[in-house]
């Protein structure tokens, strides 16, 4: 109990930098600016958001985040399995290689792709050099939704691999051995033992990819050339260009509710599975 005072700075920190800003967002979201500059309570911002033009952006963001998450899972799960294989000698190096890019800023990594993927970029120049492409031809890698999803997968893949990897390395080998002793083949061991026990990692991986993917604005701005508007871009525009903090806050609130719901769903699933794991 006497340890309680240690917690005080953290409580203060959370109040100052989490609770207060959150309340400000709620305040702005539920008010509008009148002509004389005062704020009045209103649901106008939400009414505006739930019109077809904005709902389309909303659904697009969810859809691209969903695709990115699925692709990350399909690429990440096998990668985590390979990495967690105990017979792999260079395990540490591999994980390090995966983590090093994350030490660099996301913007920097995304800008680097521009140099590679532009119409006058290195890849197109190389393809022209080896005469796969004719003079003046180029493959349009950028400025469409494919580029945005690619950028999301590239940037967030480590967030899928690492949690799955960490769950898999902690997996009790004796359980696997028991299954094998009872005559299960590789597929059965995977299907009945490894997969169910790795689900908590998968769930946190999905959350860690989906949440940044649904909120990103930098990736769509840089790789999509702002031709693809996502929710993040919409919010950024309200603050950066429109000076409409109220609408921007309202969109943020809707986004926060969606994220909270999906995380709640995920964590309930995780708990169920922990229970299952004990049996």
């Amino acid at each position, binding site marked *: 109990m006497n340890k309680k005072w240690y917690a005080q700075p953290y409580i203060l920190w959370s109040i100052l930098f989490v609770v207060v800003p959150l309340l400000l967002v709620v305040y702005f979201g539920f008010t509008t600016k009148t002509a004389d500059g005062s704020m009045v309570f209103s649901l106008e911002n939400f009414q505006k958001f739930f019109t077809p033009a904005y709902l389309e952006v909303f659904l697009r963001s969810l859809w691209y985040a969903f695709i990115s998450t699925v692709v990350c899972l399909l690429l990440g799960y096998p990668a985590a399995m390979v990495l967690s294989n105990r017979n792999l000698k260079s395990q540490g190096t591999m994980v390090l290689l995966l983590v090093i890019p994350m030490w660099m800023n996301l913007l920097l990594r995304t800008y680097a792709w521009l140099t590679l993927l532009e119409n006058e970029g290195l890849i197109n120049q190389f393809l022209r050099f080896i005469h796969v492409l004719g003079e003046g031809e180029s493959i349009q890698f950028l400025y469409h939704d494919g580029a945005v999803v690619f950028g999301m997968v590239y940037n967030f893949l480590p967030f899928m691999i690492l949690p799955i990897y960490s769950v898999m390395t902690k997996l009790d080998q004796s359980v696997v051995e028991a299954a094998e002793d009872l005559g299960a083949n590789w597929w059965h061991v995977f299907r009945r033992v490894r997969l169910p026990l790795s689900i908590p990692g998968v769930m946190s991986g999905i959350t860690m990819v989906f949440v940044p993917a649904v909120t990103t604005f930098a990736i769509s701005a840089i790789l999509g050339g*702002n031709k693809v508007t996502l929710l993040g871009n919409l919010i950024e525009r309200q603050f950066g260009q429109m000076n409409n903090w109220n609408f921007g806050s309202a969109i943020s609130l809707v986004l926060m509710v969606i994220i909270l719901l999906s995380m709640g769903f995920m964590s309930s699933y995780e708990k169920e599975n922990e229970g299952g794991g004990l049996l």
Partner: protein
Amino acid sequence: MIELKKRVLCLAAALCLAASLLLVGCEQKETIRVFNWGEFIAEGVLEDFEEETGIQVIYSEYNTNEDMYNKLKTTSYDVIVPSDYMVQQLIEEDMLAELNFDNIPNYQYIDPQFQNTPYDPENKYSVPYMWCTLGILYDSEKVAEPITSMTAMWDPQYEGRMFMMDSMRDTIGITMKMLGYSVNSEDQAELDAAQAKLIEQRPMLLGYVTDEIKDKLISGEAYLGLAYSGEAGKAMEEKESLAYCVPEEGTIFSIDTLCVPKNAQNKEGGEKFINFMHKPDIAARNAEEMLYGIANTEGKKLLPEEITSDESLYPSDEVMARSELMAVSKEINEKNEAVWQAVMSAN
């Protein structure tokens, strides 16, 4: 490890002490705090001001009007350099101090063309610093003929080689000018026409960018793009073949102004600074180095002929007469936003 931590702490404490000594040292002298755009003052001008007046300048920079606005809410400055629409917003929110023009005698040199503007009709709060235009930055080696009109950005031969600006008011505004309407029009039929034009153009564009337009043209990724003349000038210095044109249909021009905020601690010092910036030779030095339009009539006479006769920097009177400043109001913003939203979600 603990040893290291102690050392770091000691070092930090020493630095703090040194910094505070430095600050105390400054207080002996009169100081002003100037908050300016990045790269928006000629080299050596600050030093000359300090030498002439004995006032020390604490100088910091920002990149967007909005950044400046947010910073101003919590920090005190004596001189800021907001653009036209931001001046209007700051006046509306009562964040600017009325200037005492007894301290700014050089105001007599200000070009009347940039006085009594919509954002500060009585010239009470702001002194124009420099101005620039919105236009087309293009690669003269890649286009068939010199660009003169905004319609070039609807020309199918440049398909997949163009960028418009990721700035609602600029992109819609210059399209409105092309169609012969006002940048600040609230007429729904006119806005609808601009919307249709922009939706028609969208598939031909690579995208919408702001500052990156420089890189896109220098790397050869794009042949044409919207840019402000100041940015265009910087790009042209880096690549010989780049050129800039102000569309003949008229365009949006923008004035950056010198203002003293309400929260200034040394208003008179700030006014002295504003006055110094409009000494004709100083104004000319700034305009020559930045390649921005000069707002100082005497200073303009000191500029080299090749600069003042350059129509991309100083458009003809007819083009200027067709050009406008952006006005800001909730209605215009909302109408433009609806257009922008429709353009941005078109396929």
